[in-house]
Each structure stands twice: as C-alpha cells, then as structure tokens.
C-alpha cells in the first residue's frame, strides 16, 4: 500500500511529493524509520499546504484561505440551512401525527403559562360521550380530563381544596379558572362550545364544565352518576372587570342571531386587519373554530399583530378572543373573554407558538384597557350597524 501511494505520488511535483509521502509514511508506518523525525511544524506545514497551497507556503506569502472559507461555508450551510428554511412564515410548525397528542402538549404548555399547572394535571384529551347533565343526543364531544394535584384525604377535604383554589384564582386573575380552561380548550382544538367538555376530578368526584345553550352560559356541575350532588353555576355577570368583560346590548336594532355572529366576525377581522395595514404590516392570521350551529359565539385566535395591547412595545402579540351573546329574558348581553400573549421579535417572521408569554404576568392592566376599548367599539358596531 505504501509503495502504491509512493508511485502515485511520483506523478506530482517534487516538493509536493516530499510532504505527502512523508505524511503517508508517518501515518501508515507507526514507529517506522521516519517516526522519530516528525516534528510538530512539519504537520503544520501540511495543514498550511492544504489551506493556502504549496507555492504560497514555499514562498512564505500567505494568501486568503479560500479553500478553508469554502469548507466553512459548506458546513454552515449543512447545519443552518434546514432550520432557516423551516422558518417560512407560511409553513405551520410541525405537528405530531396524532392531532390530539399535539393539542394536549400545547394545552399542557398553556396550563403552565397561565399558572394553572400547579393545581391541575391533564389526564387525557379524547373524543367521547357527553358527560354533561344536559346532553340530549349521543354525539361525541371533545373531553379534556383534568385532575386536581396534591389532594389527599376524603372527598370533603378535596372539595374544600377545590373551592379554595377556585376562589384564589378568581381573586388573582379576576375570572373563573374552569371557564378559562374551557375556552382555551375550544380555541386550541378548534371546536364549538357545544362540542367540548372539561371534566375536573377531585378525589373521586368528577365535575363537568360545559356550555348550556339554553342559558348561554358555561356551567360547572358535578357529574350526576357520582355520589355527591352539588351545583356550582359560574355567574358570568358577577365580574365587571378583568379580561372577561360584559356589556348590555340595546335590543331594538339587533339583527338575527346568524347575522349577529357574522357581524361580530366581520368586526374583528376589520379591526385587526386595518390596524396592521395602518402600520404597513401583513394582514394578521385568524384561527377560528367552526361551528355553524352556535350563532351566539364567535371565537378567534389572532396572531401576527403588534402594539395592539402593549402599545409602547414592539412585541408580537397573540390574542385569544371569545365573544358570546347571552340572551336573557329581558335583555341581551355581550360577553368578551380575552387572553393575550406576547413574544419579542423584529422583522416579519412570526415567533414560534411556544415562544409566547402570557400577558397576565406584568401586562394585565394593558390587556384590560384593550378589552374595554374593543368591546365598546363592537357594542357600537352591533347597535348602530356601522
């Protein structure tokens, strides 16, 4: 082998032959005759010949190492090109093959962001029979099954712990934790309010969070097939402040329900699109659950917007908004439920969904002001039709 290489090397120039045969000899014949003469500079010289070319090394005239630069560019392209190309804003992030697994992962991430993961752990997300007490047909609903963490002892202790958690969350965030989880579920999985149910397991008792179309409210009730029977209705009218706001609508000019929901959708699209166009930005992205039967509810997750909530900051924002029309016997109410998220970023590329932070951590007031403004404009649009 050594002889063969030497023969091949003979075809090269004399000085090159010196270095290359020397290198071959030293690498192949370990401890051979020339092994003791291999000084460190000789190896360096071989590297320099590779980088700069033999003539330059010989004449001690280094030139720019184009070959090295090309090699570096090649490796950079190998390492970075796939990740850069994957960031095309038009291409959605990779999903797992099972959408439910992907949704569950995102919901777990959201629970952590919303400060709920210290209380709740997701046991399962699946399609199944409707456990709500008002279920009349046999159609499957999307069930998010949660269990209250760190509850030991009997059912009464668990219920008390549950009640303490509900009260504490409402004091801190100004809204009901089960309702917030419910709305996050329908936004994340893009289903209608009638097709989603959250079950909360406290020790051995399951509570069901579901939408009651007759009352136009999200309710929390214990499952009927369990031993304890206790009803805890979520009073949507008790909270006048916070990201969930309400306002009464004058009924005289109200269109029919379908036209009303269309009007609300159009309003939201106009509101955010025109704001982006004023700022010379591309149109925002609207993700909406589709449920043609539910005309009293409009829900969007709006991304690709900036400075709508945090006006003094140039952050990317993502608004998760639910608008519900609640038709009581004597009046019609509009409920607005808003979650806001932000992420840093310049340029036009949107951040990954995992990069967003909850606005409740530090920007709660701005979110409230934004919700106030949005709701008053929407109210005006619905009532006047302009």
């Amino acid at each position: 082998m050594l002889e063969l290489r030497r023969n091949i090397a003979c075809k090269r120039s004399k000085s090159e032959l010196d270095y290359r045969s020397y290198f071959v000899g030293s690498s192949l014949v370990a401890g051979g005759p020339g092994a003791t003469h291999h000084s460190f500079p000789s190896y360096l010289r071989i590297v320099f010949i590779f980088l700069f070319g033999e003539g330059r090394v010989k004449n001690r005239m280094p030139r720019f190492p184009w070959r090295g630069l090309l090699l570096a560019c090649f490796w950079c392209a190998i390492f970075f090109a796939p990740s850069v190309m994957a960031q095309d804003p038009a291409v959605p992030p990779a999903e797992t093959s099972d959408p439910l697994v992907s949704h569950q992962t995102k919901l777990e991430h959201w629970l952590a962001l919303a400060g709920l993961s210290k209380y709740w752990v997701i046991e399962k997300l699946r399609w199944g029979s409707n456990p709500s007490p008002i279920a009349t047909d046999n159609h499957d609903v999307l069930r998010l099954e949660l269990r209250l963490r760190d509850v030991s002892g009997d059912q009464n202790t668990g219920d008390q712990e549950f009640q303490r958690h509900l009260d504490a969350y409402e004091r801190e965030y100004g809204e009901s934790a089960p309702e917030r989880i419910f709305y996050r579920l329908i936004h994340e999985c893009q289903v209608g309010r009638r097709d989603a149910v959250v079950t909360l397991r406290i020790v051995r008792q399951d509570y069901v969070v579901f939408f009651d179309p007759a009352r136009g409210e999200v309710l929390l009730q214990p499952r009927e097939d369990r031993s304890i029977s206790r009803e805890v209705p979520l009073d949507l009218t008790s909270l006048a402040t916070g990201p969930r706001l309400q306002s009464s609508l004058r009924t005289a000019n109200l269109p029919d329900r379908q036209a009303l929901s269309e009007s609300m959708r159009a309003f939201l699209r106009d509101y955010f699109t025109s704001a982006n166009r004023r700022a010379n930005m591309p149109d925002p992205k609207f993700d909406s659950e589709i449920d043609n039967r539910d005309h009293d509810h409009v829900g969007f997750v709006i991304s690709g917007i900036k400075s709508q909530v945090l006006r003094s900051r140039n952050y990317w924002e993502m608004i998760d908004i639910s608008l519900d029309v609640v038709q009581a016997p004597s009046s019609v109410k509009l409920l607005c439920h808003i979650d806001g998220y932000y992420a840093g970023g310049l340029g036009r590329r949107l951040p990954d969904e995992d990069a967003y932070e909850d606005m409740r951590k530090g920007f709660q007031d701005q979110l409230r002001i934004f919700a106030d403004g949005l709701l008053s404009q929407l109210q005006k649009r619905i009532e006047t039709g302009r």
Partner: protein
Amino acid sequence: MTERKLQNTVSLFLILAHVLIVVLVFAMYVAGGLGPDELTTSLSIIVPMLGALTGLAVSYVLKVKKKKAMSAAAGELSGIYVFTTLLLPIVFVGAIATLVVLKTFNTGITTFDQFKTALAAVETAFGAYTGKVLASLFGKGGAS
C-alpha cells in the same frame, strides 16, 4: 507580529466586544426583539461567558499602565499562533452576536430555549479553546 502588539490588539478587541454585545442585547430589547425575561436571562448567560475572557484582557491592561510598559520590546510570534489567537476570540464573539440577531429576527432561532441551547453550543465549541489561547497570551510569561 510581536507579542506586545498582539496582546494590545486582542485586549482592546475583547473589552470593546464585551461592551458592544451588552449594548446589542439592550438595543434589541428596546427595539422589541427580546422580551423582559429574555433580556435578563440573555445577559445572565452571555456576560459570564465573555466576562472570563474580558477579565484576562483587563488584567493585562492594568499591568501595562505606563506607556513604556505597553510599548516594551517583545519577541516575534509565529504566524500560526497569531492566526489562532485572533481567530478564536473573533469567532466566539461573532457567534454570540449572530445568535442574538438571529433570535431577535426569529430567523433560524424562534424560541428562547433554542437560543439558550445555541449559546451553550457556542460556549462548548469555542469558549474553552478561546480561554486556553488567551490564558497563554495574557498569562504568566505571556506567549513566549
């Protein structure tokens, strides 16, 4: 290149780079490229990475307080030593600045976790070697 000249060049570069990287991170935060949490975490990762190297440079600068000491005669260095001593700090600082800009523009790095991982990779790939080279340059006896 003489040893003294190389020491002066590298120390100046490291001190300036340290300041400029911190300014860059703050500028990106003010421009909206980084969130409040991201700003503090970025600084708490990047400043110690650079601080160890800048510390060597500052120690050297303190030693050559007098102009005479700074321009004292020193031996000629080998080309490969000069090349390596200049290349590693430049690549190290350049890589950190590039990562900050990539994160800010959500290009290639779209989450803060990816950013932290990339910084750790840069530290692993270049930090140790850069520290070794600079310790040789600024340490006892210098590069001779």
